């Protein structure tokens, strides 16, 4: 994204907005991760405590999801950088 056409006040405003959104994104990612790993790992409800097998699964699921997101993020950034270098800026 290109914020260079904005004045200083607008850029300051946007950086506040982005900061707030990053917090929201993080919270959303957190609860999404909980839901995802719970759904994938917990299928036995004869007990109310996590079994060690379930716990290991949740840890691996969390680990893998974060690495997955990171890799997607890297490819996403490359893609955007590529697009910005080929498409002329709109002024």
């Amino acid at each position, binding site marked *: 994204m290109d914020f260079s056409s904005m004045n200083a006040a607008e850029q300051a405003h946007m950086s506040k907005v982005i900061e707030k959104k990053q917090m929201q994104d993080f*919270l959303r*990612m957190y*609860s999404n991760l909980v839901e995802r790993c719970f759904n994938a790992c*917990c299928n036995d409800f004869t007990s*109310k405590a996590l079994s060690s097998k379930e716990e290991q699964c949740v840890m691996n699921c969390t680990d893998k999801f*974060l690495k997955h997101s990171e890799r997607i993020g890297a490819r*996403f950034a490359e893609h955007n950088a590529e697009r910005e270098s080929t498409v002329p800026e709109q002024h």
Partner: protein
Amino acid sequence: MSFLGRSGGSSTGVNPERVEMAVQELDMITDVFNRLVSSCHAKCISTRYAEGDLNKGESVCIDRCVSKFFEVNKRVGEKLQSMGGNAPSGQSAFGSL
């Protein structure tokens, strides 16, 4: 609402940041609650819908489901924290701006 009876803060006037944070916490709680309802419904409730009441098995399953869900919530939270709390900026879409 119970909090209306208490008088904790001292100054008057609304602090936008404090209100903002409380609203964000509310949204988070609602989000977790909705995911809990949806996940435990998928795990515990038969979709034949032969009757409108929760049967014994479903009720017990729900209680255990909530318990396990919160344990997963705790484990994942600890994991994220152990990674240095760098997550907020790490894997969001804005990392790529």
